[in-house]
C-alpha cells in the first residue's frame, strides 16, 4: 500500500517535471504572464484610482467581482462551521 502511494507520487512528480521544460525561465521579464494585461494595470492605477498600492486597487476595484465571490466563500465557511458544530453542542447541553 505504502509503495503504491510512493509510486503514484513519483509518477505525478515526473510528469510535472517534464512539463517544466517548456515553461518560461525564472524571472523572465517577457514571459507571457507579465505581458498581457498587467502592464495596463501598473501604468494606469494612479491615474484611474489614486491608489499607489497596485495590489489593493487590483483586488478591490479591477477584480472586485472576484473578491466578492471570495468573501462569499468565507461567509459560507463560517456558516458550515456553525451548522456542523453548533447543533451538536445544543444537543449535548
Amino acid at each position, binding site marked *: 500500500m505504502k509503495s503504491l502511494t510512493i509510486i503514484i507520487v513519483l509518477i505525478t512528480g515526473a510528469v510535472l517535471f517534464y512539463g517544466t521544460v517548456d515553461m518560461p525561465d525564472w524571472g523572465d521579464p517577457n514571459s507571457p504572464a507579465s505581458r498581457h494585461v498587467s502592464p495596463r494595470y501598473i501604468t494606469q492605477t494612479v*491615474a*484611474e*484610482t*489614486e*491608489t*499607489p*498600492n497596485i*495590489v*489593493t*486597487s487590483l*483586488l*478591490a*476595484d479591477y477584480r*472586485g*467581482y472576484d*473578491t*466578492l465571490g471570495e*468573501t*462569499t466563500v*468565507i*461567509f459560507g*465557511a*463560517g456558516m458550515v*462551521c*456553525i451548522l456542523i*458544530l*453548533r447543533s*451538536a*453542542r445544543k444537543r449535548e447541553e
Partner: protein
Amino acid sequence: MIHNSTDVIIKTVARIFIPFIQLYALYVIMHGHYSPGGGFQGGVILGASLILLLITHGERVAMQRISENWITILFSLGVLIYAGIGTLCLFFGGNFLDYGVLAPLLHVSPAAARSLGILGVEIGVGIAVMSVMVSIFYNIARSGPYRNKGTTARRES
C-alpha cells in the same frame, strides 16, 4: 480552551496589548492604499485579538463586548456592505462595482471616488473576515469535551 486563565503574567500582558493590537488592525485596514495590507489582513488581526481575549480572560468578559448572536449578524453585514456598495453603483447608472459613478454623490473626482469605494469595500471585507474567524474558533473551542490534563496535574503537584 476558553476559560479564565490563572497565569498573572499572561493576563496582564494580554490586557495591556489588546487595545493596541486592535488599533493596529484598523490601521492596516485603513492604510491598505499606501502600504501592504487591506481588509483580509486587518480583519484577521482584529479577529486574533478577540481570540486572545477569549483564551485569556474567559468567555464572560469577551462575550459582553461582542455576543455570539452579534458575530453571526456581523458576518452577514460584511458581505452586505460589499454587495451594497456594488449595487449602489447600479442605481447611479454604472456597472456593478464601478465606483467611479459615485463621484456626484461624494463631491469628488471619479478617481478619488474609486479610492473611497475601495476603502468601503475593504471595511466590509474586514468585518466579514473578523467575525468568521472568531465564529469558527468559538464553535470549535466550545464543542466536545475539554480535558485540561496539563494544568490540573501541575496544580495538584
